[in-house]
Each structure stands twice: as C-alpha cells, then as structure tokens.
C-alpha cells in the first residue's frame, strides 16, 4: 500500500518537474522576445553603422563608437528639449493627479448628486471627439497656441485613467473605513485627505507613471500648437534632427552615404535618449503595482 503511494508521489513530482521546465522555457522565450529588441537598440546605437546595415550586429556590438551619442548630445536644442519635456511632464503629472484623484473619488461615491449625468459627461467625449480643427479653434480662442499650456492642459485628464481611479476607490477603499472616519468626526474633505489619500499611493503612483509616460512620449499636440522652437519638447527636437539628417541634399556621393549611415545610427540613439529616463523611473513606481495597502485594516 505504502509502495503504491510512494510511486504515485514520485509520478506527481516528475509531472511537476515537467510542468516547471516547460513553463520556464515558455516564459524564457517570451522574455527573449521582449528583451532582445531593447538590447538590439542599445548595441546598434554604439556599433558602426556599416556593421548594423550589413546585419553583422546580432549579439554583441561591432566597431564600438559613440559618434551618434556625441552628435546628438552636443546639440544645445536637445538639452532644451529635455528641459521642456521634464517641465511639461512634471506639471502634467501634478495637475493630472490634482484633477484625476479627487474626480475619481467623487465618481466612486454612491451619494454623488447627479452621478449618472457626470458619468455620461465623461463617457461621451471618450468615444466621440470634436476633431482636430475644433480642438485647434478652442485652443486658439483660449490664446493657448504657442504656449506650453497647449501641451499640458489637454493632457491633464484622461477619462480612461479617471475610470481606473474610480474603480480603484470602489474596490479598494472599504466603506467601513469611511464610515469610521465620519463617526470619528471627519467631514467629506478630511475623510479624503486623512484616510483615502494615504491609502491610495498605489493608484497615484500608477496614474503618475501613466500620465508621465504619456506626456514624455507625446509630440502631436506640440507639433500642432507650438511654433516657437524654444518650446519644443524632446520628441519634437529628435524628430527635427532625424528629418534634418535624412534629408541633407548635395555633397559628394560619399558624404550622402555617410549621412545615411549616421541617420540610421541616430535612430537608435534617439530611442535610447528618449526612453532611458522613463525606464529609470519605472523601478521606483513598480513596488506600488502589487502592494496590498489594506492589510490589517479590516477583517473580511
């Protein structure tokens, strides 16, 4: 009897082992598919453009050089673009949190007067936009064209993010806690600032990341509304550099070829220059994604 159960146990262990191996292999493959393009961009940005074009750069950089980085970073407009983007991103994140979090909290309350109306108010523009020309006209009549607010203000409320925040409040902040605070003597505002906000670090971190990445990568509003080059965000400056390096006319055939190779390297370099800060930000926010903030508060 015991022997049989031992054999059964061994069978179960070997089954587990097979599962773990297959699981590990599959996950490894997925990781490779995701990570290799990132790795390739890094090695291509410091490899010789000829080697990249010839397909010789596969696992390691070939003919290591930093010409692309030098070319990009020695330009003053890149640094100005960086500064502009940082200003736009920081202001967008601050303003968007100031708008999204209280709005999400209000919409999550069952007692909000006219809740249905407010929901429709936010949902309809989510699916039906006014179009570019009316949008431009609005910005123009508000005298925002060619100011940094033309880039910031349209980005401070994403309805999608608002509903995510609302759902977080509905599911993660227990009613019992709010009721306890009310009985303890807190009014609506105090409940929000003293109880809800400290327990919402996770959603605020996630929202900050979403808004920051969105603003960091955006260029369309800037392209439409900004004419003054000193206001250009990084993405627009990089776009200008790439277009300029690709469209150089004249010169000998060799110069044109050189320009073409450099333009190719600049592509990889600009990807790194523009995405590195966001990649550096992620580890600091990541811990909030899986954090259980309510431990110990309530017995369910």
């Amino acid at each position, binding site marked *: 009897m015991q022997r049989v159960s031992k054999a059964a146990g061994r069978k179960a262990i070997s089954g587990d082992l097979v599962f773990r191996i297959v699981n590990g292999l599959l996950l490894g493959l997925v990781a490779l598919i995701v990570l290799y393009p990132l790795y390739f961009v890094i090695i291509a940005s410091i490899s010789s453009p000829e080697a990249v074009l010839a397909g010789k750069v596969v696992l390691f950089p070939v003919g290591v050089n930093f010409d692309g980085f030098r070319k990009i970073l020695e330009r003053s407009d890149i640094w100005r673009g960086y500064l502009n983007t940082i200003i736009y991103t920081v202001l967008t994140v601050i303003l968007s949190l100031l708008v999204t979090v209280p709005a999400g909290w209000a919409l999550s309350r069952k007692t909000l007067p006219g809740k249905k109306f407010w929901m429709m108010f936010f949902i309809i523009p989510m699916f039906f936009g006014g179009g570019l020309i009316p949008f431009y006209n609005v910005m123009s009549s508000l005298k925002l064209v060619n100011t940094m607010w033309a880039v910031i203000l349209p980005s401070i409320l994403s309805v999608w993010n608002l509903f995510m925040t609302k759902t977080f409040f509905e599911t993660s902040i*227990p009613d019992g806690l709010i009721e306890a605070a009310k009985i*303890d003597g807190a009014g609506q505002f105090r409940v929000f600032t003293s109880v809800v906000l400290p327990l919402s670090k996770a959603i605020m971190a996630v929202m900050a990341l979403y808004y920051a990445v969105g603003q960091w990568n955006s260029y369309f509003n800037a392209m439409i509304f900004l004419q003054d080059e000193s206001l250009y965000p990084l993405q627009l400056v990089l776009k200008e550099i790439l277009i300029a390096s690709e469209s150089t006319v004249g010169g000998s055939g060799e110069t044109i070829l050189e320009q073409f190779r450099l333009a190719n390297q600049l592509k990889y370099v600009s990807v790194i220059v523009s995405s590195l800060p966001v990649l550096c930000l992620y580890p600091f926010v990541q811990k909030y994604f899986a954090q259980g903030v309510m431990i110990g*508060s309530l017995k369910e």
Partner: protein
Amino acid sequence: MAALSLKNIQKIYPHSGQSKPRKKKGEPEKKSNLQVTAQGVIAVQAFNLDIADKEFIVLVGPSGCGKSTTLRMVAGLEEISGGELYIDGKLMNDVEPKNRDIAMVFQSYALYPHMTVYENMAFPLKLRKAPKDEIDRRVKEAAAILDITQYLDRKPKALSGGQRQRVAIGRAIVREPKVLLMDEPLSNLDAKLRNQMRAEIIKLRQKINTTFMYVTHDQTEAMTLGDRIVIMKDGWIQQIGTPQEVFDHPANLFVAGFIGMPQMNFFDARLLCEGGKYSVSAGGCTVELSPEKQANLAAKKVPAQDITLGVRPSHMVLSGQHGNTLTAVVEVSELMGSEVHFHANAGGKDVVVIVPTMNADGGRVDSFRSGDKLNLTFSGSVCHIFGQDGKNLEF
C-alpha cells in the same frame, strides 16, 4: 452619557432599477421575510425604544432582522425613513454623524491601516482639535484600560484579531462619547477570544460611564451583556426586557425559540380549564399550572384551546413513574461533562432533555442509549403557553 429615544423609527430601502417588485400571478410580494411595499423594502418598522442614561441595550436577532440597520440609523450612517431619534432630548434625524457625539465599534474593526495604534486612537481627538497633551493623556488612559499600551507604536497589520478589536474599542472610548455603539464587535473572533472579550466588555462597562447600544446575533452575548435585550425579527421588535424576563417569559414562539440554549422544546398540547383550574395536556401527560400562571390566564379569561406548549430542556425531568408522563425515545446522547443532552423523539416531535451526570448524592445517573425510552415530566411553573397565533397567552 445620554438617554436615547427612538420613536416609531422606520427604514425603507427604495427599489433600485433592478429590484422593483415583479408581480406574478399568485406570488406574494416578498423579499426574504421583509415586507415589500410600493416605496421599497421595509427593513425596520415601528421601532419604539427609550434607553436610559448609562444603560446597556442589546439588539439581538437573526441575520436580516434589522438590528444593524437600526444601529446605523442611530449612528447617522443610514437615513431614517420615518420616526424620530432623540439623543439627550435633541432631535437627531438630520444631524451629521460627527455632530451626534457617538462612537462606534465595527465588526470589521475599521482601523486606519496607515496609522499606528496611537494615531488610530488619537484621530478622533485630533479632529476635535483637542490639545496635544490631553490627546496623549486620554490615549494612554484608554490603552491602559484595554491593556494595549505595549502596542501603541504598531500598525494594525502587526496585531492579532483580539488586539485589533481592542484598538477599535479604544478609538471609540477615547472620546468619551455620549453613546457607544457596537455592531457585532466579537463576531470575527474565535470562540475562546470571544468569551475573553465578552468579559472585557463587561469590565469596560464598569470603568466608563456611557450608554451602550450593542448589536449581536449571539444570544449568549445578549444575555450576559445587556441590562435589557431587544429581540427583533423581520424588522419588527418581538420583545423588550431584561435577560431574565425574556428567558422566563418569552412573548411569543420566536423569542422562546431564539433565547435559550439548547432551544426550548415545543409540543402540540391542549390548555384545559376545569373548575377554574388551568392545566395543560401533552402526549398523555397532564400538568396543573402554577398559581402565578393560573392567575395570569384567569385575569385574561383565556378559554380552553389547542396550544403550543414550550418547556426548556433543562426543565424537563426524568420520571421514575410510568403514568402521566411524556414518553420519548432517545436518538442521540451528547455528554457535555457535568450533564448529558438527550436528543429524543416524542410522538414525532424532537425533544432535548438536559440531565445532570450525577445526582445529589454524588452517584451516577442512569445512562441511556439510542433507542431507550425516557419518561419525562415537567412542573406547572415552567410551562410556556402559546396560542395558535404564536403569542404567549399569559401576556
């Protein structure tokens, strides 16, 4: 410290879009056992109660009887649909919870997870802008009463269930509220801790001068804690009285069955009235009622009729005689240490009989096994007589 007065309090939950009463042919409009009207589901109705200053009132009843809803209406967490609530003579129907000077302990503890125990307890005082040294003094006093001084720097997640509940009580008493509301505060604790905390609450009551309103579904808590008990069912008050009163004189079949452990035995019986003397007859056993019961029934001129007779398991007595007794067949016997609970069948009715394992002389009482016959009797003073409508005929 305050007196409470609830006058004709009513709570109606309006129909939401989905739960409008659908009328089908022949189907009564009912959601569980609560009454459903055109305005909505009536969760509490005609709730009248005066609570004296420093009194400990316990609302008890099964799930969905409206006890928590009533407490939440007193707290201000639920709107009062009808009637009036007075705290210290002031009408409180539309007063915000924070202005009612009440405190509440929740079943789920509802501690602020981002604050330490000290901060949790200090929070209500901070909101009332109490001076710092007073906050410190009162928090430490409350912590000493509840024996949680050593945990003041910990966060709730680092505490056990019992400690968390003490903190929740601490947060409530630190403010010295007029009324302390407790919504099933011990329900989430294990049996041993619950007994311990029950004793703590009794001690706490002696230390702090306040009016208590306590909700529970556990009749042991109700019996041991309350000065008076309010027994509720389907939104209606069934009986209000001291623990002894509701145990000795249950107003109806529901109260009789709900209060007391094990549950009261019920028999189909006949109330007899011969020569001005009342007696009950059930399963071949006729017992003359006690003079007190005789007087009560005579005063109400109760006629002879079919009744439901209630006798508590501890009041059933094993008889050596064979005549004028109720015969029951043992199905299961449970040895509880000092006593045995016999679950028996008496003419199709389940009967529980509690018998001590030793008699007065210290000798062992005869043991009975499954299938053995018991001859049972009871005295006329322990009979509870309920009419066909379930009401106690003595009331």
